């Protein structure tokens, strides 16, 4: 099944790779602890007793080693030749070509004609060095990453309310003591199964239009119509007050701004909330009662609440609810966001976001610019300013004033970006597309230059999981011959662009040491964290500042117990109002389409679609639809359907789901080609966060005529 990895190749001059290592799963933000070893020529994985997974692992994690030796693993740089085909090239030739073209494009069009697109799966070291490379070597403001599609709404809301954004401001294990947990648009039973081990004690309130496996375990399942979570949160706030469940003392002593937020909730009577959301008054009331009566309760949001053109306001509304109930900043209660990607947390605070410098410093803050310029040894004035958000960046590619070249690291926007048909056109309009990846992803296949890079079990580094805990990734293997680490790629390009080599270390530990200095004093302060402390088994959650003398800082597992991160120590209610989705179903497009994940796949599927055991479970795109809606559309279980939006069409296998709303269809977004769910989604963005509206598109469903012989007429 897997390739010949029994003889790991050693890098000259380095120690031979170990026989077993303790590391973490390559996939989601839970970062389950695993032990890797060798048996019978294959890499083996066993879950460890790490606190977040407690010996558990889902099928993705168990089968992750297969991706290391996947048959089409990229093993040498590829350059598109005059014949239009990608052909093998040497590293020097490939990097020379890229650097040369980048210099030309920059000379002709200026530094912002080169863009960088990063990923939430990159290690902290890579995310940091990528941001530094963009700002110093390329001098471009055009850098953003796929985490914009993931964490940005919750990040905006958390920063506004608490003055800092850490997915869970408490350890995951705290959830195990909760009496009640409200999950707004989160489906951990499928997206991060081992998390459910911490939720088996609590009574769950699940908000989701679909009856997901998580909703199956709920004490109360609220099924708001797609795009109405914000109205529901406003309604729950009103009921909290009307039913006498407002935590007056907490609101008075630890928060600001309740009045304005409450006034926005005033029109949301339970009855009007019911009419707009479809959530019964009795269920709203029960949810509020459960949360208020619990001794320990949490409000958690996921992508279902966040991936809207009003995602940040929606999260703010749920944070307001949590504050009204007095949950945040108390041991055993709180608000949190279930971060999605493996390094979704570290990836968003170390400098690959368009508006941020490392340490969660804002790029338009003069003090932050001075600090970073000093660490990097440049003038603050030389640092570019804030650039556009991810979708805006992709939308501008190849247009007048937009980038002519794009470097992609750890992302597959052809599949994962919204309005994927349009994004693919924009990528095709570039003069130069460079993709660093370890498999020929759909985006890599479009590239002019493909750079093969190492993956999880072949590299050292750190990631920061959903609870803000910094974790060590450790190498079991050396990368296959011909494959380089991303850090090496960045140095190779930087040097060719005229940068001093020492600015771009290739040793992760060395990058981390610089990252510590860079984040010192920032909101996400890693300066007290070191490889030595992590390797000694310390559980370090940021902020963990360096202490000049005396005992080291123990890290901060629980934020806000003494105060929130605003200067006055108080949390802020943020007044928000409900608004409709950018697009509503109508006559021609009568149904809501909502997109999401399945258990067997991760993100764009570039990795998991290469694992036999996972594709056996979910081999192809599908659309879930209520039997009534299917009958009206003329599609049948197991047949093919075409799902059509104003932007594109998807062909998918029909699954009838009785528990689904009759007005809603669901499609997973992990599949390529004409099965890309993101061919349907649009480019409407949240004005606060830049988050696209993945969760609401207006669509119709039609049968696909299958002609004899199996060909599909589209």
């Amino acid at each position, binding site marked *: 099944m897997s390739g010949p990895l029994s003889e790991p190749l050693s890098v000259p001059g380095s120690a031979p790779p170990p026989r077993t290592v303790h590391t973490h799963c390559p996939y989601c933000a839970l970062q389950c602890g695993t032990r890797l070893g060798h048996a019978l020529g294959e890499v083996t994985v066993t879950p460890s007793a790490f606190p977040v997974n407690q010996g558990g692992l889902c099928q993705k994690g168990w089968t992750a080693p297969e991706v290391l030796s996947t048959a089409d693993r990229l093993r040498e740089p590829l350059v598109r030749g005059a014949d239009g085909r990608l052909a093998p090239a040497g590293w020097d030739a490939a990097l020379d070509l890229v650097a040369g073209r980048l210099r030309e494009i920059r000379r002709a069009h200026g530094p912002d004609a080169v863009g960088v697109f990063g990923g939430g799966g990159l290690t902290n070291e890579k995310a940091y060095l990528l941001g530094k490379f963009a700002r110093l070597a390329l001098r471009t403001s055009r850098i953003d990453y796929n985490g914009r599609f993931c964490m940005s709404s919750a990040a905006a809301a958390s920063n506004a309310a608490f003055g800092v954004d850490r997915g869970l401001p408490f350890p995951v294990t705290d959830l195990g003591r909760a009496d009640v947990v409200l999950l707004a648009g989160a489906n951990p039973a499928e997206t991060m199964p081992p998390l459910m081990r911490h939720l088996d004690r609590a009574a769950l309130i699940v908000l989701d239009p679909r009856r997901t*496996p998580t909703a199956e375990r709920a004490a109360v399942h609220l099924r708001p119509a797609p795009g109405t979570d914000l109205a529901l949160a406003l309604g729950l706030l009103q009921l909290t007050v009307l*039913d006498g469940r407002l935590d007056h003392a907490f609101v008075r002593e630890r928060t600001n701004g309740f009045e304005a937020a409450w006034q926005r909730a005033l029109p949301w009577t339970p009855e009007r909330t019911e009419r707009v959301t*479809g959530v019964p008054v009795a269920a709203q009331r029960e949810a509020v009662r459960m949360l208020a009566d619990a001794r320990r309760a949490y409000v958690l949001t996921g992508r279902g609440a966040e991936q809207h053109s009003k995602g940040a306001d929606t999260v703010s509304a749920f944070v307001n609810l949590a504050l009204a109930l007095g949950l945040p900043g108390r041991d055993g209660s709180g608000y949190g966001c279930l971060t999605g990607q493996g390094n979704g947390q570290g990836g968003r605070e170390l400098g690959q976001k368009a508006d941020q410098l490392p340490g969660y410093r804002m790029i338009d803050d003069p003090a932050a610019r001075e600090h970073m310029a000093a660490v990097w040894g440049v003038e603050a004035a030389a640092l570019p300013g804030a650039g556009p958000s991810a979708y805006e960046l992709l939308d501008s590619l190849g247009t007048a004033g937009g980038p002519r070249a794009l470097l992609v690291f750890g992302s597959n926007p052809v599949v994962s970006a919204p309005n994927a048909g349009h994004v693919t056109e924009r990528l095709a309009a570039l003069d130069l597309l460079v993709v660093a990846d370890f498999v020929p992803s759909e985006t890599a296949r479009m590239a002019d230059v493909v750079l093969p890079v190492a993956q999880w079990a072949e590299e050292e580094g750190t990631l920061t999981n959903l609870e803000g805990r910094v974790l060590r990734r450790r190498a079991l293997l050396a990368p296959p011959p011909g494959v380089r680490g991303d850090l090496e790629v960045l140095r190779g390009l930087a040097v060719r662009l005229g940068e001093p080599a020492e600015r771009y270390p290739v040793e992760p530990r060395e990058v981390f040491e610089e990252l510590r200095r860079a984040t010192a004093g920032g909101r996400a302060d890693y300066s007290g964290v070191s490889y030595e402390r992590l390797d000694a088994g310390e559980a370090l959650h940021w902020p963990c500042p360096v202490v000049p003398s005396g005992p080291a800082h123990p890290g901060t597992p629980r934020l806000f117990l003494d105060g929130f991160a605003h200067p006055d120590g108080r949390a802020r209610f943020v007044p928000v109002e409900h608004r409709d989705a950018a697009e509503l179903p109508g006559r021609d497009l009568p149904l809501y389409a909502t997109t999401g994940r399945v258990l067997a796949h991760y993100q764009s599927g570039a990795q998991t679609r290469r694992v036999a055991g996972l594709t056996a*479970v979910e081999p192809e795109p599908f659309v879930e639809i209520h039997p009534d809606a299917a009958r009206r559309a003329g599609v049948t279980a197991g047949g093919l359907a075409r799902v059509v939006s104003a932007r594109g069409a998807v062909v998918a296998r029909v699954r009838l789901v009785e528990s689904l709303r009759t007005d809603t269809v669901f499609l997973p977004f992990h599949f390529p080609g004409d099965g890309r769910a993101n061919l349907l989604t649009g480019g409407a963005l949240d004005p606060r966060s830049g988050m696209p509206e993945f969760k609401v598109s207006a669509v119709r469903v039609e049968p696909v005529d299958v002609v004899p012989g199996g060909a599909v007429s589209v």
Partner: protein
Amino acid sequence: MKRILVVGNGLAAHRLTARLAALGHDGPVTVLGAEPHPAYQRTLLGSVLGGDVPASALTLSAPPPGVRVLTGVRVVAIDRARRVVRCADGTRYGYDTLVLATGARPTGDVHTLADAARPVRGRVAVVGGGVLGVETATALRRRGHRVVLAHGGPHPMHRHLDEVAGQLVAARLESWGIELRLGGYVPASGTLGADTVLRCTGTVPETAAAREAGLAVRHASGSIVVDERLRTNDSSIRAIGACAGTPDLAGALAQAETLATLLTGGDTRYAPLPPILRPRVPGLDIASLGASGPSGAPDEVVTFSDPARGRYARIEIRDERISRAVLVGLPEGTAAVAQLSDTGRPVPEDRLALLLGGRTKAPGDDPAAMADETVLCHCNNVSKGTVVRAWQHGARDLAALAATTRATTGCGGCTAAVRAVCAALPVPEEVG
């Protein structure tokens, strides 16, 4: 610059001025409110009466900068020729566009914030068992008052609820300790033995000045006639909310938003949602749709009656759509029916699931009866057959089963099912 004058200072007027500002209207906007308070959320008066929140909690946000709000100013006349309104205190205000958002006037005792906040003593008689009367009686009862509800009809809300539904509501009110006097006539206050009498006999649209000025009003209800652009028969006068016959909060807010778009140069139309009567009675779900609309022979009538549990529904369906419905004690059904009515979507085939919310069948999870290919552990895609085979090959406890099959190693949620499957297996002979 176009001067907009808004008469009325309720939620609709409040939303209108907020939306005008958001949409960039830059002319002067003046709001005239008859009550002395700043704008407040009138729909929640019952919560003040019930003692759930203080009156001050109902105050809406301050108007946007530049909007002038004058309170305690009652408009008594509209001079359409001069485009001026005259107030009871003699002041006059000119307009280019006049928006009437005057709401509805009570024919009874409880309508303003001041009324709701006034202390109520001892045993209370609520006269009138329509929506307002039922809401008021239950709010007072919630606050601990002894309450008698007197109603001329055969049961509460008899104009909106049929006999079965009305009896269920009556029974529920009585179970909460509200004394009911029903039928035939409304007794004189003196015969009710109450310390306080509150008349809740309904509301009428507040349109006296509009009528006086010659604006067209509906004969039956007295509400101002408006078109889909919310224009009265005088194109410089618009009307929104209860004074224009809009029955509920949702409609009034939608009208305010439509009008703001129109007044800032946008092109849109107001499309009313089908009216739904949904009284605010915490703990009892009551809904009535289409009771006052035109009747016609339905294609199908669905009835569900479960009086012992206080549940009842009667739904009339025409052309696969709901034309009328009465529901009591069915919270899921009430929410679902309202959404179907608002969106004009067809009724689901499974009528019972519609009323009861989701599944009506219990999932079959008897492990012995499960097919071998049934997936027990979704996290690792382990079927019952795989678990059974592992057990038969000697993996006789959870740890051994997990090691062989990976079942239970994901979220752990299938642990009980895996145990149950194994417990149901016959013990092999060599062991027994």
